[in-house]
């Protein structure tokens, strides 16, 4: 085991540090043999009272399984003393930097290309029954050839079995769907699609579409933009055929944290996104559906006319690139502190916890 580990370790060189956080540091390095540029994410362990950190486990678990052009590739894992090192493909920039770079001009085909790559990556996760739960421009990394990759699986998890509760404290607030803001504990891949809708809007607007100051304000912001949902927009499901899924198929008014909001009128998306074509508005509207069951899946979204209509998606190497190199970026949970109230970082939380009061005190091994 040690030999295998050391053999992997020797395969890579670790050079300059490109990111720092309390739980991990990221280094730029090379694969010694091929000269390929890599990023080495060094996760400090042994400092946590509960052993290996949940987000490290999640990241490693899912990246070991997901191999797709639009998902960040993990080349290897090795350990050095009490550190876990993830060898990832090196990506030069991210979508947030591109959106913020005012010197760049986006053509409609550019946005279509980024959206197609994002949806392909997200669809691949969903087809593997994995929820990402933290999609945002900052987590969509881009390589030197312009290929976009979904990254940062620290909050990801498998789709839960019916009846199992999941935490609603996931997804960075501005990209968090209303069902999570209302406290839903049973949800689906639709939560990621809402985030993709917000990212699409941000690409069109060049500024975050729904920037709420806090969780309540976030719902207000959403409703101001899209109209307060009525019972018919997000109905209580009376379909008893799928008894097991009854919990998931509930209307918003029955969700745990539901509160009544001011009745904002619906505004057509065309009013704000005046430069976008009908096919683009169609995709956006389908991603930002209130009822999670009506929200389009990533796979179906890719088959909408928007992606086959003119203009064609820009080939990745021709996409706009920022002049600036990727700067050292704060890693979670530091990002959280740095962002203050306008936090762009999702909160890590635990899903279902066992009730210890019910645990009997006596156990016998032999």
């Amino acid at each position, binding site marked *: 085991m040690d030999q295998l580990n050391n053999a992997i370790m020797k395969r890579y060189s670790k*050079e300059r*540090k490109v990111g720092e956080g309390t739980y991990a540091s990221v280094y730029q390095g090379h694969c010694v043999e091929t000269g390929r540029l890599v990023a080495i994410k060094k996760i400090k362990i042994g400092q946590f*009272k509960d052993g*290996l950190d949940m987000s490290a486990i999640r990241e490693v678990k899912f990246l070991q399984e997901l191999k797709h052009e639009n998902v960040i590739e993990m080349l290897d894992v090795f350990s*050095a003393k009490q*550190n876990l090192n993830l060898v990832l493909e090196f990506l030069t920039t991210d979508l947030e930097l591109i959106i913020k770079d005012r010197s760049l001009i986006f053509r409609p085909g550019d946005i279509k290309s980024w959206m197609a790559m994002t949806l392909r990556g997200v669809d691949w996760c969903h087809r593997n*029954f994995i929820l990402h739960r933290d999609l945002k421009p900052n987590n969509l990394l881009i390589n030197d050839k312009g290929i976009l990759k979904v990254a940062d699986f620290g909050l990801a998890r498998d789709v839960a079995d019916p009846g199992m509760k999941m935490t609603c404290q996931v997804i960075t607030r501005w990209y968090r769907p209303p069902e999570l803001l209302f406290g839903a504990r049973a949800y689906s891949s639709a939560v990621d699609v809402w985030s993709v809708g917000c990212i699409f809007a941000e690409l069109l607007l060049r500024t975050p579409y729904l920037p709420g100051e806090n969780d309540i304000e976030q719902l207000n912001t959403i409703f101001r933009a899209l109209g307060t949902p009525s019972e018919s927009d997000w109905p209580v499901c009376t379909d008893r055929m799928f008894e097991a899924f009854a919990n998931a198929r509930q209307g918003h008014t029955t969700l745990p944290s539901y509160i009544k909001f001011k009745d904002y009128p619906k505004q057509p998306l065309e009013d704000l996104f005046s430069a976008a074509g009908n096919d683009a508005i169609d995709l956006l509207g389908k991603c930002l559906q209130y009822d999670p069951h009506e929200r389009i899946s990533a796979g179906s979204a890719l088959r909408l006319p928007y992606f086959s209509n003119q203009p064609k998606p820009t080939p990745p190497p021709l996409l706009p690139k920022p002049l600036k190199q990727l700067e*050292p970026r704060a890693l979670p949970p530091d990002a959280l502190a740095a962002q203050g109230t306008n936090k762009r970082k999702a909160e890590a939380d635990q899903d*279902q916890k066992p009730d210890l009061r019910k645990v009997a005190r006596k156990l016998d*091994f032999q």
Partner: protein
Amino acid sequence: MNGDGVIEENVAQQETHDTQNTHTPQAIYHDSSQYRHWRFSAEELHEKRAAANGKAVAVTRAGWDEEKELNPESSLSTSITPPSVQEEDDLIVYYLSQIRPICNLFQFPENVEATAMTYMKRVYLANSVVDLHPKRVMLTSLFLATKTVNTPISAADFAKYVGKGKISAESILDIEFLISQNLRFEFATHPAHRAAWGIYLDMQTMASRQSQQVLDGVYAEVRQLIRVSRLTYAELIYSPSQIALGCFSMVNKGLLDEYVGWKKTEFGAEEPNANAVEGVVNLINIHKSRGGLKKEAVQDIDKRLKLWQDPSKVEGTAMYKKKQEQAEQEDYEKRAKRQLEVERSNYDGESVFGEALPALKRSRTNEGVEEEQEQEQEQNGSQQVKQEI
């Protein structure tokens, strides 16, 4: 999760892993780490277990010989029979069977139980019970599984309820990293009970479906058999759906045949691999006929296991002393090397890690920081790439 697995498995048997195919739904299981790294033939499996046993036994033997040389008066008894591969397996199975009661007490979902058992079996592919006691491996595998399948619990609580005050959180966490290494940090598993659940759901949509009562009855029995299958090496040889099919065939062959026929005509599924299904049934039957291990038998193996230890790990032996001295020597050398590094970086004024001076100041008071630095230097090794940050 659904019965489509039936189709996949025939392909899976033929080892035709085609990376070009990764984007077709059928190939998703083939991309999994379980398919790529954790499936063996029965012979390979036996070889691996025998190799691990042989190696561990030889290490102890060599240790004893050396001990005798160092200390002719050694009181170590060398006349014990080492644990055989079969005895190792028995012991592992015994501790595998202890996972279920613990999971019941904590009310962990079945996924946690299945995953912990998978981890334990994978660990013993390359290790002997002589190196790592199965009780420890069992507890740490279970603790790790609670985290990898989203049912985290604090290490302190886990140890408290499991250990009756005799097991510390540290002893569980101590080998967590080692276990993870042995798992190649591949935490995702594809348990057979989910495949069985998929087939059960599938059967409810069959045109000629049986009454719900019949299906529920069959499924309840299947679940019992799946639990038994977890006490065998089936999952290291067969795919989840093959195991599920095997269990269904044991409970109601007629229903399964009808189901397979329906999958073939309606969905173009291939005939399941009969050898694999039969292999699963055999493993379950063998386990059933052998029955569980008696407590006394476990205690006997356990007792010999305690005596059959590498003397360098047993306190009070000459080998132990020697190892301690070696460790001290290494420690001394490390310190000397570190001192040298400090001096060198004082000359250079700047190290690879940027602000060397403040960091070094801290390192005198903070052991952690110092450790960290030393490690980095080792990582960079001879390359000494010095770049601005």
